[in-house]
């Protein structure tokens, strides 16, 4: 059981590590967002909030964003496995679909975590500071849960897709809205009621809020409420993914 999960995990890490272009390329977007938004909106935010530093608000959002994208892509990679035929090799093996789901979720989540940690260190270069080791520890828990949830979501979606044709649909109608309406870039206050509602059913909202609460002390819902919500959602998405995987046909 453990070894099967380990080998699935190891394969994904090898893929990640061997594709240096992807590793470096995926750092471009968070860096651009951080510099463009950080310096662009920074003065406005400081004025509107009465002196607060926008980088403190933005850094956890950008870390969450990089985890979101890396995790979803890692999950969707199963579609490539299917197209290149490798998925069959795993599906005909005498292993449970739960093992496959756990191995793939942990693999994708680990990659997303590494990506998130690299972005977190970049925020340090741009002047963002975490107050204590304890808050860093709690922050890592949130980063991991965000990574688990969105890898699981990517896998669940991938199990229903035959090819990459639906990729744009998923990006523009699911992942981008999840990102923009999660409070990663701007505070979720004084919003029109429709946007307010969407932001409240957006799983990333609780991830971002929790991470921000953990590493900067700013939280709307309370760190432990966030922890409970994102933790439960992660379990739920993995359970759903396992069911979908067990129905998967090659």
């Amino acid at each position, binding site marked *: 059981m453990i070894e099967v999960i380990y080998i699935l995990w190891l394969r994904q890490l090898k893929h990640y590590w061997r594709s240096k272009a992807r590793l470096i390329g995926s750092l471009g977007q968070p860096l651009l967002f951080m510099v463009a938004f950080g310096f662009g909106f920074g003065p406005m935010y400081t004025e509107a909030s009465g002196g607060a530093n926008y980088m403190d608000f933005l850094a956890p959002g950008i870390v969450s964003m990089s985890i979101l994208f890396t995790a979803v892509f890692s999950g969707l990679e199963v579609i490539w496995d299917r197209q290149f035929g490798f998925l*069959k090799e*795993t599906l*005909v093996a*005498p292993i449970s679909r739960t093992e496959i789901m756990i191995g793939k979720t942990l693999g994708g989540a680990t990659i997303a975590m590494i990506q998130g940690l690299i972005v977190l260190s970049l925020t340090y270069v741009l002047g963002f500071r975490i107050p204590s080791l304890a808050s860093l520890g709690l922050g890592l828990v949130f980063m991991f849960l965000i990574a688990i949830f969105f890898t699981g979501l990517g896998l669940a979606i991938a199990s229903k897709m035959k090819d990459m044709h639906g990729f744009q649909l998923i990006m523009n109608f699911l992942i981008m809205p999840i990102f923009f309406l999660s409070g990663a870039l701007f505070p979720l206050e004084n919003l029109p009621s429709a946007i307010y509602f969407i932001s409240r059913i957006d799983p990333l909202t609780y991830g971002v809020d929790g991470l921000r609460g953990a590493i900067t002390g700013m939280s709307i819902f309370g760190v432990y409420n966030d922890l409970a919500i994102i933790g439960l959602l992660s379990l739920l998405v993995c359970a759903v993914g396992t069911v979908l995987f067990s129905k998967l046909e090659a």
Partner: protein
Amino acid sequence: MQNILSVQSLTKKFEDFTAVKDISFNVQTGSIFAFLGPNGAGKSTTIKMLTTVLKPTSGEISINGFNALKEQDRARASFGIVFQDHSLDDELTAYENIVYHAVIYKVPKKERAERIRRALEIVGLWDRREDYVKKYSGGMKRRLEIARALVHYPKILFLDEPTVGLDPQTRKSIWDHIKNLNQEKGMTIFLTTHYMEEAEAIADQIAIIDHGKIIESGTVEEIKEKTDAESLEEAFLKLTGRDIRDENNEPANKMRMIRGMRRRNRH
């Protein structure tokens, strides 16, 4: 003789199209069984059901005494498969591909290195084990897939067109390996191929499927006798006709085509 594989009234329907219609057959332990048919006859659909990646609409499959629908994992551990299309991870080395296989098939850790070495030696790839699969030629990939399927000591090996697109040298060496495995290890071989002379040379038992039904079965001699043919190829053409079938006649593609046509007609 015992049957390692037993199929009863197997049927697979895709929406309004029936790919496999109520087929039954047995494969004897230790034999080489060739499953032949034109493109789109239902060969691959049948193999997919036998190897548990596709659920039958109805029917029973027993592999090595295990019910392939209810005791999936034990059935899965009993067979090895070389798929018709590519199923290696190009971004891993040959060795890593096989280790992955050995682990997910739960080959005991102590025996792993030795078994992998032997499997790679059988197909002559031991010296190239550290190469990435993407650097391999088509024939090498095929040999690697065969080596991989051997690592967990399957009782029955499914080979779905193992020699398609390969040069005569590679084809010969692959069939030699397969014959060896059959004779020395007593491994049952279930194969499909479009090369009738290959099937004629190697198979103990043959079943010919067309339009989802088994239209003839028996030894090569029996089939030639029944159809009054000189060669298996002649017998095959007599049985299945000379019309050329659509390439790529996979049921999924067919359905997509039909659906696409309907959609176009609606406009």
